[in-house]
């Protein structure tokens, strides 16, 4: 496998980077990088770290990064999870207020500890950290419960003061969304599975309305909705399917601008069904902190959309009277 870290790859322009990944020869991993400057989203770090765990030790090649920003990758623990020595001299600073380095989460206890420790690292006011820890917690729990990845999840986050944005990336090398959903929902391809997974009340554990005792199929819909209401980027990549929630950018009042949809294809988005196949699931989200709704207000909007979608789905199954 070959990955080249480009000069710049954020959620807005992550598509060409993902297309450039060469997943052939999965027994080796060769990581190269732009020589001058590397500036990438934490989702990319999570993808590389989780991919590295699938390759036998000694089969990872990573040339020394020459770019001036190389020290960033040392501090984000990328080289640690690649198992290579970067030769990059770094003075470790207290990371408070800036980033959450790559962290591997394999079970519920590690998840709870991470959620508790990560929020203070980002030094955010409580009304911001509320939605962030919600999103991170639900995404990581999805991996632990549904991915069947022995490596668990990789997560990283970074606060960018200039844009006042938190960028979060989570990746796993598990069974992917389509296989996970297939226990209860057959889909024709990965992008159809992603679409279904983002709808309210769809879970891989059952077809029954209301879900099981443990799962309702609401988690990803909530997260996509939080991103949509707040006008944030949200990317989900699994198999060869790729969905990107774009900034909604519609003029009008905030409510009209960010009207929630139960079908993600009704949101402003881009998608592909022919990406290089990622055996697992990777998610990226950007959260601009300037203009966020109060979390409870936002949840009330989600509540209305969720209830409507569940009622409509139920109604669609009603038997119709026969008229002659």
């Amino acid at each position: 496998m070959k990955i080249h870290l480009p000069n710049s790859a954020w959620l807005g322009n992550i598509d060409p980077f993902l297309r450039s990944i060469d997943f052939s020869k999965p027994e080796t991993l060769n990581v190269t990088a732009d020589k001058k400057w590397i500036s990438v989203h934490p989702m990319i770090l999570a993808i590389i770290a989780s991919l590295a765990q699938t390759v036998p030790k000694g089969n990872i090649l990573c040339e020394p990064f020459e770019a001036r920003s190389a020290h960033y990758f040392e501090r984000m623990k990328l080289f640690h999870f690649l198992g290579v020595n970067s030769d990059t001299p770094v003075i470790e600073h207290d990371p408070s207020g800036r980033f959450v380095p790559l962290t591997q989460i394999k079970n519920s206890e590690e998840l709870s500890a991470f959620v508790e420790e990560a929020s203070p690292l980002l030094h955010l006011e409580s009304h911001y950290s509320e939605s962030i820890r919600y999103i991170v917690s639900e995404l990581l729990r999805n991996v632990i419960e549904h991915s069947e990845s022995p490596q668990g999840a990789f997560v990283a986050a970074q606060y960018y003061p200039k844009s006042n944005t938190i960028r979060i990336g989570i990746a796993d090398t598990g069974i992917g969304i389509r296989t996970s959903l297939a226990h209860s929902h057959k889909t024709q391809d990965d992008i159809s599975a992603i679409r279904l997974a983002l709808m309210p009340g769809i879970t891989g554990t059952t077809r029954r309305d209301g879900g099981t005792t443990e799962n309702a199929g609401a988690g990803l819909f909530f997260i996509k909705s939080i991103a949509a209401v707040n006008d944030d980027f949200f990317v989900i990549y699994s198999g060869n399917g790729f969905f990107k929630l774009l900034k909604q950018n519609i003029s009008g009042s905030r409510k009209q601008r960010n009207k929630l949809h139960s079908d993600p294809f009704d949101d402003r988005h881009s998608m592909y069904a022919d990406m290089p196949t990622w055996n697992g699931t990777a998610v990226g989200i950007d959260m601009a902190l300037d203009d966020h709704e109060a979390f409870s207000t936002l949840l009330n909007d989600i509540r209305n959309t969720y209830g409507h979608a569940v009622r409509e789905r139920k109604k669609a199954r009603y038997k119709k009277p026969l008229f002659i």
Partner: protein
Amino acid sequence: MITILLQPLVRDFAENKDIARDIREKTLMPALARADKITIDFAGVNGATQSFIHALISDALRKYGSDVLEHIIFRNCNDTIRVIITIVTEYMQES
């Protein structure tokens, strides 16, 4: 009347579904089976995930229907937790 204090179990954020399952199986469902009333006290808990609340109460709603909400009292919930509990109780009653 049984009261469950969540904060000592989940600290300030209720997200661990293993804890929700333990409460459900060991305290909530047995109490409901005895027709006891139960109070779930969120004092000191600032947030909760939908997954946690679902794992905690959906089984009770499925088994006993909406009448069970006369036997479960949610105390000291902030606005966020109230909305999440409302969402779960609504979709379970509609399912």
